[in-house]
């Protein structure tokens, strides 16, 4: 896989790009997006207890 494709795929899965790369269109892409949501919610749930403030808040 080309680096550019990997980048656009990651950006799409992270919500910062609107157009899905060809790799992530169709049923396969929708399933992968669901997996990203589940993984993200699981990670947030697992780590949210130790939260500290954002570095840039006091700027």
């Amino acid at each position, binding site marked *: 896989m080309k680096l550019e494709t990997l980048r656009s795929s990651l950006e799409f*899965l*992270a*919500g*910062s790009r609107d157009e899905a790369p060809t790799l992530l269109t169709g049923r396969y892409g929708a399933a992968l997006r669901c997996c990203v949501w589940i993984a993200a919610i699981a990670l947030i749930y697992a*780590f949210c207890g130790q*939260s*500290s*403030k954002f570095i840039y808040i*006091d*700027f």
Partner: protein
Amino acid sequence: MIFNTLSYYFCFLIPAAIAFRLATVRVRPWIIVLFGSAFFLHFAYGMAGVGGALCLLIFLWESLTSRLYRPGSRWCLLGLTQSLLFLGLFKYWNFFTGLLFFHQSNPLRWQGAFLPLGISFFTFEFYHYAWDRRAGKTEAGRLSEYLSFILFFPTMVAGPIKRYQDFLPKLRATLGDWNQDWERGATRILCGLVKKFAVADLLTAWTDHLNAHDLLTADRRMLPVWLLAYGIKIYADFSGYSDIAIGSARLFGIRVPENFDWPYGRRNIQRFWQCWHISLTRWLIDYVYIPLGGSRVARPRIYANLIAVMLISGLWHGAGVHFLAWGLWHGLLLAGQRLWRQWRGEPSTAPVPVFSSRVLTFVLVNAGWAFFCMDLPTAQIFFRRLFVG
């Protein structure tokens, strides 16, 4: 905290975004003003008490004076001055008066000093509006529209720093597809929270060691690891924050500027700054670097301008000598890169030089974080232990 609290999502973001999308174009700005004011009062009170909450008056004052700004008008100069005064008074009063009474107690010290929520960011938006109105680069808009620009709470606290001429058309436009905006926005928010909770906060266990005691007692091989951890932490923390802000704005159907574009791994320090905190870099270029003459002056002046801009950037990041040192470090790197480019010409595109320059840029940026996250004596200890032992 703010973006990692449930109250942000359930009391402010979701109700405001729904109300905004259901309202007519004329009512939409007032929805933002209403929720933005409530947001500021709630979180500013939580951080700095009644004094902090009263700083909402700064927004009201600014919005009233902004009605006087006209192209070429002197009132715009008042706007520029008052923006800098707000920032100077709250953020730098104790720092500069402390420098006046170096090594002595400061009789002018403001004991109850506090930082109003988001002051470093909203004053830059005030400044931009006054400047661009004076230059005739933006229309005045209605009072409600300007108020909604400065009180747009997803970006109020820590950016991205918006431009009025970009924001206004989005406020007036027909909103895009609700489903797509919410799916993309929520995904962005979730990824931002993952960066914050699962990366940035997790690295705190290592970055907490960047203090004088641990630096003096630890195995010196751990020092670069801790600093590298800080480099990753600040990226995950701030880009995560920006993701949440941009994702939150997307729920309203409003797209705000991006703040990061894969900054680590860039070929040189100039490219790094074009991809790190992009909205700040653009602000500094437009309102500091270009007014100083930019790149259209003699070469020594260009280097001086670059260093001056980065010193201002350093001071903006915090009222401390170590932030100035961090700014100076980046100013010298930018000036050094220009000198190198003049001497050696266009960079090679062969794989080895490209890879080496990416690694070198990454190392230099990370070395600079030492001045950012530690005070000057501690940073001195860090480098002495690292290189001398």
